[in-house]
């Protein structure tokens, strides 16, 4: 693992009124790492992620993403990251090709780059036959894979994935993780939230968030040793029930 840190979070906090959605979290993510960001529903994962991608301003604390400060240079961060939200966020009423062109376009890719990228991407996803179909007509698993590929269009340094495999069948999930590994092996940092503990095992390191705080952060192997259990599932339950 490279020692270069691409995400550095220091005492990051977000309050909604009296409620501390994210409470003083501190962690680092290294370049090319697959970082699992776990936590129960409502633990503050999505809020924390939204601060890191520059669409929510932190109440206090600092974070540096891809070399830029989230408090002052959110727009610079956006050039260097990709994001895939919980909700499917491509345009249903555009075709596969049109979605790729649109997102490539607004990331500032040239026509030529967009063309090359989309041919490559469609081939990889096996979507060549449906490239002129409306995205709305695709099965969820295909949509999610497309969505992930679109978030990688502009070769971001870091990709943030918010529950990318929710509601997706096991085979597609497996395929999805192959894509994640491929991206990571080419140097892209992956920051992923998930509720599937088998997926947590695939991560280089995982953090577990409980009530706005990070309760544990280590490799899956070490976490299992620390808590003296056999699976990540049990680690998670131990931490969350505490």
């Amino acid at each position: 693992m490279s020692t270069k840190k691409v995400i550095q979070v220091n005492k990051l906090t977000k309050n909604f009124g009296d409620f501390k959605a994210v409470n003083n979290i501190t962690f680092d993510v290294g370049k090319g790492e697959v970082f699992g960001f776990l936590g129960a529903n409502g633990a503050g994962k999505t809020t924390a992620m939204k601060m890191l991608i520059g669409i929510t301003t932190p109440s206090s604390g600092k974070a540096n993403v891809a070399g830029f400060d989230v408090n002052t240079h959110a727009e610079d961060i956006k050039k260097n990251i990709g994001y895939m939200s919980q909700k499917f966020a491509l345009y249903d009423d555009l075709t596969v090709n049109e979605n790729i062109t649109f997102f490539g376009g607004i990331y500032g890719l040239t026509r030529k780059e967009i063309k090359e990228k989309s041919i490559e991407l469609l081939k990889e996803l096996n979507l060549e036959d449906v490239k002129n179909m409306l995205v709305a007509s695709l099965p969820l698993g295909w949509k999610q894979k497309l969505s992930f590929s679109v978030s990688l269009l502009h070769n971001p340094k870091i990709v943030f994935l918010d529950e990318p495999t929710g509601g997706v069948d096991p085979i597609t999930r497996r395929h999805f993780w192959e894509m994640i590994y491929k991206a990571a092996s080419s140097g892209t940092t992956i920051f992923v939230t998930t509720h599937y503990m088998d997926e947590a095992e695939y991560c280089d390191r995982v953090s577990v968030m409980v009530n706005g705080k990070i309760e544990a952060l280590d490799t899956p192997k070490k976490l299992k040793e620390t808590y003296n259990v056999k699976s990540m599932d049990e680690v998670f339950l131990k931490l969350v029930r505490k």
Partner: protein
Amino acid sequence: MKITLYIIQKEFKQIFRNKGMLPIIFVLPLLQLIILSNTATFEVKNIQFSYIDNDHSTSSRALLEKFNASTYFDVVNGFNTSKEAESAMLEGAVDVVLEIPTDFHQHLLKNQKAVLGIRINAIDGAAAGVTNVYILQVLKSYNKQLQTKLVQFSNYNEKPVTIITIPSFWYNETLNYKTFMVPGILVLLVTMITLFLSGMNIVREKEIGTLEQINVTPIKKNQFIIGKLFPFWIIGILLLSVGLIISKIIFNVPMLGSYILMYSYTTIYILVILGIGLFISNYTDTQQQAMFIAWFFMVIFILMSGLFTPIESMPNWAQFITEFNPIKYFVEVMRMVMLKGASFNDILPQFLKTLLYAIVMNALAVWSYKKTN
């Protein structure tokens, strides 16, 4: 610039792909133009006219004949008593009751003066006022006829002095209300469509979650907003064009002024409306909320635009509020340019105010659009 083009391209694709939306944008407004222009009339016609003739003389019959001859009045049967007439009015069967006293003819001959009773149903005050004017017109013409007759009876040598006024109505000589209404209704349609479309556009992306995806891209606020609004700007101008063609072909509304002037004003005007729509969109979370707020402003704008009721007769505070009503300026400009052939200098005040309004609204809209919250 290139990025903006990608957004424009995407917006147009989405608009033309939405089969439900196209007729709403183009067919419905034009239907409205055709229907409303024929129905939104200030003329009062088919006034149900009844009478109580207590005199049954030649004079009273001549008077009733006058009303019968008028195209505005439908003379229904006479009543014998006030009571009958009142109950008929209560039922809504008659709008006017003319009561001729028993000695009408006598008084006319002896005193050259007689008193008539007129009751007008004034639930609709404006219509009652117009009815009253029509009745007075008929009575005046009856008077004149009578005067000549009476003068012949008497031995006076001097002729009665009568002053005749010949009104000449400028800019709309035949007082054709359609000429007056069509440009105004066209304004409403262009405004409504552009306001609703722009008001719901960004909030729709909020609802389906794509706005968040846009907000994590490095796109600049103004690139995004220009790209979003440009298609609706084009649609507004297209709508105006089709509306102008219809008003020429179907309603034969004259176009005395210059088309260039009208279009250059409209391009700025639509920017105001798009700015308002976007502003609404930024402060709402659902299309439903956006729709309600857009309607709220639309109703106020329409009623205070001077289209249906003259601004001059509003209370001072309301007249002040109309200064902030973009529709007011558009209605004024439309009518001035189409019916009076106004030049650029004539509409300069409206032009400058609209321009200022457009700048302020769009600045507010861009400012209130937040990529980060």
